[in-house]
């Protein structure tokens, strides 16, 4: 028993340090590769090979470290024994939209749509307004997935709802079914610069890239990052540490600064809730109410001008229930 444990521990340590090494090395290579292309053409760098050897290589010969995406079948199954959850702390969110930006650049999203959108919310005229970042809720009783006629949008065992844009027929039933206006349609061909950047990627539902005209897309909880053990883009992009992400089975969520807290405790201490609970969609995204905020509340009057919607009334600003 002791031996076994020790063995697995040693193995683990080996693997962990190796993985860390590879990541670091790859990051360094990335930077140096870029620089070498720009200024010094023949630059040497140290590379850590998967079998643990270090050697010096010419930067030009190196390629970016990009593991091939998992197969479609694997992407549909998801990671076993995991249930991903997100917790968003409204008390910490100052509406800076760093999460949106991180997400936009990660997924090459065109500027008109936001997979995670920061709403200015006010439940009623007398209650205080607050910022409300809204990704896809990856509902456990997902109305969007129910209505898809071809199983192009599907729910995985780890709770993530994804879209297979190689199967989607573009009927948009899912868009009208989602009560949270989470889904976006590719009404036209992706723009030329986007094709240039993403066109050669190997498609996987986990990547949501390259996008295709006539199909639907939405927030995917960055499953490719999760597979690498990394937090989704919005979570690590949040400078206010307002977004937590983790595995409900582990009962732990982590935010951008790496603070990991007990999920159940977090909800219990802060009166966590889910948005529009009474719709019964059972979101996997939880919210903590905006109590004791340390930043100015959103200015609902100013927002009216930005809304682009002239006839927008106070009533429409309210979320329902």
């Amino acid at each position: 028993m002791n031996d076994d444990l020790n063995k697995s521990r040693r193995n683990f340590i080996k693997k962990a340090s190796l993985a860390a090494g590879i990541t670091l090395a790859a990051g360094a290579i990335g930077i140096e590769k870029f620089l070498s292309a720009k200024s010094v053409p023949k630059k040497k760098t140290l590379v850590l090979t998967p079998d643990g050897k270090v050697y010096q290589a010419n930067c030009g010969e190196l390629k970016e470290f990009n593991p091939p995406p998992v197969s479609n079948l694997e992407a549909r199954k998801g990671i076993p024994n995991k249930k991903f959850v997100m917790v968003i702390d409204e008390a910490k969110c100052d509406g800076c939209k760093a999460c949106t930006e991180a997400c936009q650049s990660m997924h090459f999203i065109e500027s008109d749509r936001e997979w995670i959108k920061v709403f200015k919310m006010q439940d009623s005229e007398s209650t205080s307004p607050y910022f409300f970042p809204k990704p896809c809720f990856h509902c456990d009783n997902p109305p969007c997935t129910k209505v898809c006629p071809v199983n192009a949008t599907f729910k995985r065992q780890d709770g993530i709802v994804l879209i297979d844009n190689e199967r989607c027929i573009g009927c948009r039933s899912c868009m009208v079914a989602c009560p949270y206006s989470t889904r976006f349609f590719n009404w036209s061909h992706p723009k030329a610069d986007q094709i240039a950047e993403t066109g050669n990627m190997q498609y996987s539902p986990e990547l949501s890239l390259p996008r295709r005209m006539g199909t639907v897309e939405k927030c995917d909880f960055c499953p490719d990052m999760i597979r690498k053990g990394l937090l989704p883009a919005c979570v690590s992009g949040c400078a206010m540490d307002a977004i937590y992400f983790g595995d409900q089975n582990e009962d732990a969520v982590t935010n951008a600064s790496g603070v990991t807290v007990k999920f159940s405790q977090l909800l219990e201490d802060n009166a966590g809730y889910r948005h529009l609970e009474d719709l019964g969609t059972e979101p996997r995204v939880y919210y903590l109410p905006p109590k004791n905020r340390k930043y100015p509340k959103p200015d609902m009057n100013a927002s009216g001008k930005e809304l682009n919607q002239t006839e927008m009334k106070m009533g429409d600003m309210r979320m329902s229930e």
Partner: protein
Amino acid sequence: MINEKYDLKKEIEIVREDCLRPTRRWGRSTQIWIGCLLIMIGWGIYCYIHQLRQGLGVTAMRNYVSWGLYISTFVFFIGISHSGTLVSAILRITKQEWRRPITRSAELLTFVSLLFGGIMPIIDLGRPDRLVNLVIFGRVQSPLMWDIISICTYFVGSSVFLFLPMIPDIALCRDRLTVCETRFDKFRKWLYTKMAIGWKGTKTQWHLLEKSMTIMTIIIIPVAVSVHTVVSYIFAMTLRPGWDSTVFGPYFVAGALYSGSAGVILGMAAFRKLYHLEKYITKRHFDLMGRIVLALTLIYAYLNLNEYWIPAYKMATSEGHLLEDLFYGSYSKLFWTLQFGTVLLPILILSIPKGRTVLMISITCIIIVIGAWVKRYVIVVPTLLHPFMPIQEVPKDWSTYFPNWVEFSITGACLAGIFLVITLFSKLFPMMAIWEVEEGLLIEHDRQLAIDIRLKREASERVINIEKLNGEKVSTEVEPIKPTVITS
């Protein structure tokens, strides 16, 4: 003691001639009409190719209003397709004699509007090239799948329902088309021969046909109801305010029957005028159909009340925003015009006997049909503009919707397609079920005979009775009754 002047055979011959006449001549006006329709369809096809290449972005639909004119039209066309079932099947089951001259046009309208109604969602698809995915990966949990299943079922059913009573007529066309000089005539002969499936009018054939008709008449009614119920489900199965309603099924069915029967009246009026069928499709038909539309409008009004009054009483948050917008917001003008124009006005006009003239009924039905179309739009679009999440900081065109020229062109082409198919059909096949009208004549004839006989017998009995009472002889002369053809 039947009127000697009345010649049944001759009458039947007249009916046949009247019905087959339009199939013989393709006048100039017909050609121009078909030409216009083809131009419209051609333009629509061009627009569709444009849409296929550039994506649905060429329409006015955007991320909030992701279903627009196409889906509204889909619902509308499917609604119109309920005409055939109601007028034909229900009137058949209830053995309404007056149905005979109008069943064919009703069934045809069903068939055609279903055909084009089914095309609408395909036009609306982002990736029509992946249509086969529906077969490969089809999920039976999706309301859209239910739609596909039930519309296919209804389409097959209504085709059969249209075809069955046509068989003897086609056989008649086949037999009457003796001289085939032009290539077109040869084609027609070939078509008639194929479609008549060897109809010879034997007793067994008649028996089989009648049996099949009875079965179809019964089975088509639940299928039709299921279709529009399921169409409503693609809306009602969502959580959206305005769609999340339990009366949506019956509401859509009632709306469909009401607009569909109005459509049938319009068809009747058109054929009556164009093909000079005034003798068969009479004022009485319009009056009766007007009553039916009146009844259906009342049912529709009742469901309308349920649909809006119940949530309006409660004004639950999200639903409340939508209703505010409908009642006094940006959609209020349209909404109230619709309510007054298509609910109140038809009731007022159709409930007074003077309002049930051919002209008035036709005008009312035009209003109803157009109103029903706009109504689908008002069901689809405002709800999409009132999601649970507020619409904030989006491009301007996301938060408004009005169909643009591409959508209008393609939808117009579909409408033109409906007219084209109806026109071609009416130029190839008789627009009245000849044998059914004949049957009507026969029945009427027999009835008159029976009446004659009965009157005679009663008279003689009376004579005997009187003789018994009075011991006198009474004259047994009875006034002969002129048989009235049902059409008068």
